[in-house]
């Protein structure tokens, strides 16, 4: 008989925080996009492309941090493509996002084959080392959970806080929220709606790119085909579950990260089918949308904005 404490131990909680990181970054990105009125379901593809881009740069320079910078830049570029299609040309947001996902799936595997001769995985590259926080890591129980992690993990709550401040404590944040909730009124008030929309969608790409970089340059040290494994979609779920709020997103990301870690642990123990655990984030999100676990209402109606 497996005891509960064998399953829920400090190891799994540390893993939960690790697995939450890419989800939280992408979901925070998605928050900016949705707050300016554009759904970005292309985050999965953006994460994947950035994961590859980061590995390529680290492969040729030997510096994983340059890889992270490249991943964020690539994410921003793909966000720009999504913005051009959906804002400039008022194209369909879902179709554009789906296109980016399919394109990324094909392009990353193609590049991996060209560069390393394998569509499965790249060679291993220099990656970001974990750091240990001196005093914190010695505290019993808490130390092993939060004491040693990648710098990108420690950056996660900082970025969340920055997102909160930008969104709710600055004029820019006010503009972002106004554009999402009432674009016509925002335009009348002198806000450049199109510029703010571009900005929001590009930021969603950059943060998704950061999430992708975490996967390939910190969690692992290589690129593997389809390595995002649906985390871009989980991020979308976390965004809804977190009710489009920065700290809500952080909590939802941690919860879904925990589900991911639990699934891996249970699979290795072989006591509960992993599929059941993997299903949980999606079932929870549907439940939230149905109002079973608190109501969730999006911050905009996602219609393309046309100047009159």
């Amino acid at each position, binding site marked *: 008989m497996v005891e509960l404490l064998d399953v829920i131990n400090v190891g799994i909680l540390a893993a939960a925080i690790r697995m939450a990181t890419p989800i939280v970054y992408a979901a925070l990105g998605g928050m900016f996009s949705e707050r300016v009125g554009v759904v970005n379901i292309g985050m999965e593809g953006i994460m994947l492309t950035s994961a590859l881009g980061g590995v390529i740069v680290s492969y040729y320079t030997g510096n994983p941090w340059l890889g992270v910078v490249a991943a964020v830049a690539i994410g921003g570029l793909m966000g720009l493509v999504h913005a051009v299609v959906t804002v400039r*040309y008022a194209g369909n947001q879902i179709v554009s996002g*789906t296109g980016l996902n399919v*394109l990324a*799936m*094909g*392009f990353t595997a193609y590049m991996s084959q*060209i560069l390393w001769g394998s569509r499965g995985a790249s060679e291993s590259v220099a990656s970001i080392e974990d750091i240990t926080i001196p005093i914190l890591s010695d505290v019993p129980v808490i130390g092993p959970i939060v004491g040693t992690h990648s710098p990108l993990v420690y950056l996660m709550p900082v970025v969340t806080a920055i997102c909160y401040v930008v969104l709710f404590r600055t004029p820019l944040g006010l503009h972002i929220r106004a554009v999402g909730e009432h674009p016509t009124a925002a335009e009348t008030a002198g806000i450049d709606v199109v510029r703010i929309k571009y900005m929001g969608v590009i930021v969603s790409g950059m943060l998704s790119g950061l999430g992708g970089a975490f996967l390939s340059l910190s969690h692992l040290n290589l690129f593997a085909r389809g390595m995002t494994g649906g985390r871009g979609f989980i991020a*979308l779920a976390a965004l809804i579950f977190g009710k489009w709020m920065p700290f809500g997103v952080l909590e939802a990301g941690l919860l879904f990260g925990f589900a991911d870690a639990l699934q891996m642990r249970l699979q290795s123990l072989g006591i509960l089918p992993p599929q059941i655990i993997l299903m949980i984030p*999606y*079932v929870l999100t549907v439940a939230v949308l149905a109002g079973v676990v608190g109501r969730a209402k999006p911050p905009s109606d996602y219609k393309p904005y046309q100047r009159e």
Partner: protein
Amino acid sequence: MKGAARRALRGAGRSSEGAVFQVAAILLAFTVGALVLYVSGYNPASAYVAMLGGAFGDVYGVGQTLTQATPIVFTSIAFLVSSKAGLFNIGAEGQFLVGAFASALAGIYLAGLPWALHIPLALLVGAAAGGAWGLIAAVLKTRFDAHEVITTMMLTYVADYLTGYLSNYPFKAPGWVSQTVKIGASAELPRILPPTQLSAGILVALALVASTAYLLRKTILGFELRAIGLNPSAAESAGININRGVMAAMLLSGAIAGLGGACEILGVHRRFIEGFSPGYGWDGLAVALVGGLNPVGSLLAAILFGALRSGGMIMTRSTKVPLDIVIILQGLVIVFVAAPTFMKSLLRRGRR
């Protein structure tokens, strides 16, 4: 009121200039694809020739192309039907999987029935299961105002893991592979072009294309769905029950996707295998748009996507070009059809 709605519908039905734009999007995608091939050191012309030859060059190629196209015809018509009612059912993949699994169970456990009864019954079970899965999103929308894009997407992942669980645990066949046992011989849709895998499922698909065109153009239900899609408030004041229309559209859309899953299992795989769908449901969305949201257009676009898959495999064997160029081409087509105004401005510039 009804007269006005009818006039609006008539105007929206014309899309001859649309076809130009779809073809332009496809050509542009192949041009960019050629560039990708050229930059990475391959000869685009020989790759495309090999792909085309593999997909249509002989009877075997045509058979495999149509085999690959069949499931996408179903999923694209599923998307099309929902979109006519103004709904964005992007969860055809989930409905397809649920339908596939349910029909596999019907194929296994009803074995012994005469085939004339067993095949239609198994197809019906698949359609019913897919329809029920689609209906969940409709209920969430009408009762709780939850957007169908998100719910159908989330439910697709639930369906994926659910069928994965069922084929790995309660219904797993002995052995290492995550699959069910074979369906009874009486439930097998016949193969119509051996040695290819092309099954009578393509005939079901063709019948579906014809009946969808009929449904949308000539029936009251089709009229109501299109009226809701074009202008819900006008439709409502004309006495059309919106909630009922949403339910009907999602039920129908899910059932069509589920029927596609059933045809794939009964005709091609003859058992449920975890991960047997390489994303036919997601392809459906793209194919419906490339086909200009028109049933016959869906059929043609599905054949194009089927040809990419089957021809791509031949191309990889003979020219060593990575198979993933096919996925890149699909992605490019989708991005270009997403922005009609972009394509139109490009066409205008080209004419000057």
